[in-house]
């Protein structure tokens, strides 16, 4: 669906992107991760043709980015706004038409969306009379009104209360089901694990990792297991620093080059094993670890 090749961009002496290669497959939710100022927004702006890259190129379905692609992308920026004095309906028509929909098409689709989201009664209200969450919904619908095959959402959940965030999350999943490719830029790791199929992480203008969630997690496995032994028949070695809780002993053991089954066999001598579970890092832990380690360089 989307591919970037050796993208470079700098603002004066500051490098925003250095040789960034990305590959986003069709129909996935792609998490674009990275701390503030890493270069995510620059990348997104380049894909949206708001700014040009210094070098490198962006391909959409194999073709270099062109002005026609504007109608195929839906973009919800992190910093977003609506005309306060404009009515909901007029505003949505305006955005839809700027994306290339005809007047008639825009009207039909907006009407359907307003009905679907139970917002029909707000039609004639001005944005300044809506609550923040309501305005965010208007904004979200405006972003997807032209059924873009590629959707770029920058921190889509910020500003939503949990109920509305859930509604938006369901809409994103629904769109994915219909075949939309979604690029989700966020630093909320819980939503990344929940939603994303693929991720890429950018820090200090470089892409520092990418792959499916599973691949990323696997590559960061510390090869350590959580173990619980109930009522041990043998003394647990002191260097394992086990914690005892009503006869159950909890501790973590590294594989140290063994196969997990070998380790499990060894452990079975100590008594009944009620837990033998590999430690899988959360995306959050990987994120923090990676940002810190590139920071130290």
């Amino acid at each position: 669906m989307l591919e970037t090749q050796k993208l470079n961009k700098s603002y004066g002496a500051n490098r925003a992107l250095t040789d960034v290669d990305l590959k986003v497959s069709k129909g996935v939710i792609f998490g674009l991760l990275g701390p503030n100022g890493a270069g995510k927004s620059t990348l997104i702006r380049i894909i949206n043709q708001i700014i040009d890259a210094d070098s490198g190129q962006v391909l959409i379905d194999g073709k270099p980015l062109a002005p026609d692609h504007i109608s195929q992308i839906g973009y919800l920026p992190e910093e977003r706004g609506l005309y306060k004095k404009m009515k909901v309906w007029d505003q949505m028509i305006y955005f839809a038409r700027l994306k290339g929909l005809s007047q008639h098409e825009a009207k039909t689709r907006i009407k359907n969306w307003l009905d679907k989201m139970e917002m029909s009664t707000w039609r004639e209200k001005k944005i300044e009379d809506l609550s923040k969450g309501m305005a965010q919904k208007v904004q979200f619908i405006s972003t997807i009104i032209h059924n873009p095959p590629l959707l770029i959402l920058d921190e889509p959940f910020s500003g939503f209360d949990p109920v509305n965030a859930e509604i938006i999350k369901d809409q994103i999943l629904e769109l994915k089901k219909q075949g939309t490719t979604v690029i989700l830029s966020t630093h909320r790791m819980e939503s990344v694990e929940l939603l994303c199929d693929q991720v890429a992480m950018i820090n200090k203008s470089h892409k520092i990792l990418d792959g499916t969630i599973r691949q990323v997690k696997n590559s960061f496995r510390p090869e350590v297991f959580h173990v619980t032994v109930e009522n041990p028949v043998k003394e647990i070695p002191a260097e394992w620093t086990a914690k005892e809780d009503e006869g159950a002993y909890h501790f973590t053991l590294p594989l140290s080059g063994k196969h997990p089954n070998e380790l499990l066999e060894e452990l079975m001598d100590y008594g009944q094993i009620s837990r033998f579970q590999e430690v899988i890092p959360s995306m959050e832990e990987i994120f923090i670890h990676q940002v810190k380690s590139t920071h130290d360089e």
Partner: protein
Amino acid sequence: MNKIWLVMQREYLARVKKKSFLLATLLTPLIFPAIMAIFVWIAMEEKDNQSLRIIEVVDENKLFFLESSDQYAFSFSDRSDEEAKDLVKNGDRYGFLHIPKFDLENPKGITFFGEENPNMNLMSYLESSLKKKIEDQRLYESGIDPQLISDIRTKVDIKSITVNEQGEEKVSNATVNYAIGFVAGILIYMFIFIYGNQIMQGVIEEKSSRIVEILVSSLKPFQLMMGKIVGIAGVGLTQLLIWIVLVGGLTTLVTGYLGMQMPQQQAMEMAQVGMEQIPDSGVSEILQVINGIDFVTLVLCFVFYFLGGYLLYGALFAGIGSAVDAPSDAQQFMLPVTIPLIVSYMGLFVFVLQDPNSTASFWLSVVPLTSPIAMMGRVSFGVPFWELALSMILLILGFLGTTWLAGKIYRIGILMHGTKPSYKTLWKWIKTNN
């Protein structure tokens, strides 16, 4: 192009639909006549309510006489300085005019004492009366009868006719041309300022409310800028059109009303007399002058300079708006925009309307930043074709130039937040290519 049209429509409708637009459009043509009416009324009231001011005159020459008026009465006496000044201090007299004994060839030492600063009117009345009396006296002494001078005095009005290359003759009148140039110049000046500011406010609104990021993902910043500028121009033209209709309608109504007041026959006579019997009378001359003005050229020029000036400055206002986060920050960049505007405004009065064909007038009406206002001051006087063409071509080039410049600032400026740019950063933006 389609997207520029969409932006234009939005900018136009968002403003025209507002109640404030309707109010401003309907009330403005009434405000100026209303303010003038209030001034006239205040002046009349003042005149009515004013008590008679008595001025003590001590003339040691026993020569002068001053005529009393509604406002001032003159009392002649031989009182000493101290006595007269006491009268002023007590409030019995408004002022005291002391005319010491002097040589008529060298009148000196005339003094006015008053509790407050006397107004200009009174002083000039006193000065001219004394001057006239002294002059008459001196004429008399040299053996010339002042009556003779008065008989010789003649009123002369020069009728001015311009001859163009085709040999056509036109009656012209400096006052009428002055008035047309004055009104047209001021209108353009006001329009540029008011609507230029609206462009700037609009850009700042989009930028500070972060709508712009969504917009520029759908269209080019340049399209957005042009749509806004042209859309707001539409608002201005609409307003102007409504004013023309309104003022035209009001004038017809008022003249119609006045016409009804006047007995039919008298009005007819006046019209006939004016047009045929005495073709040299003042009213008919003005009519002739107005007939002589090429209104088609005038209106076309007005629309051209009106739009040209607005577009030229509008682009600059858009550029400034894009560079700042809040209207208050815009002040620092306003100078390059306001200075040429003020220069053309001042130039209109100091050079153009005084002498439309001077070198200063020529340059003011040719340089694109000042030409919209200055040239409109000249058009009604008649401008050589090549000068008009040069000025128009330069204005179009100037507009393309400022738009290019503003576009460069705009596309970077609208995405910049939180930094206060300086002229140096603006220059850097202009130089960057993407």
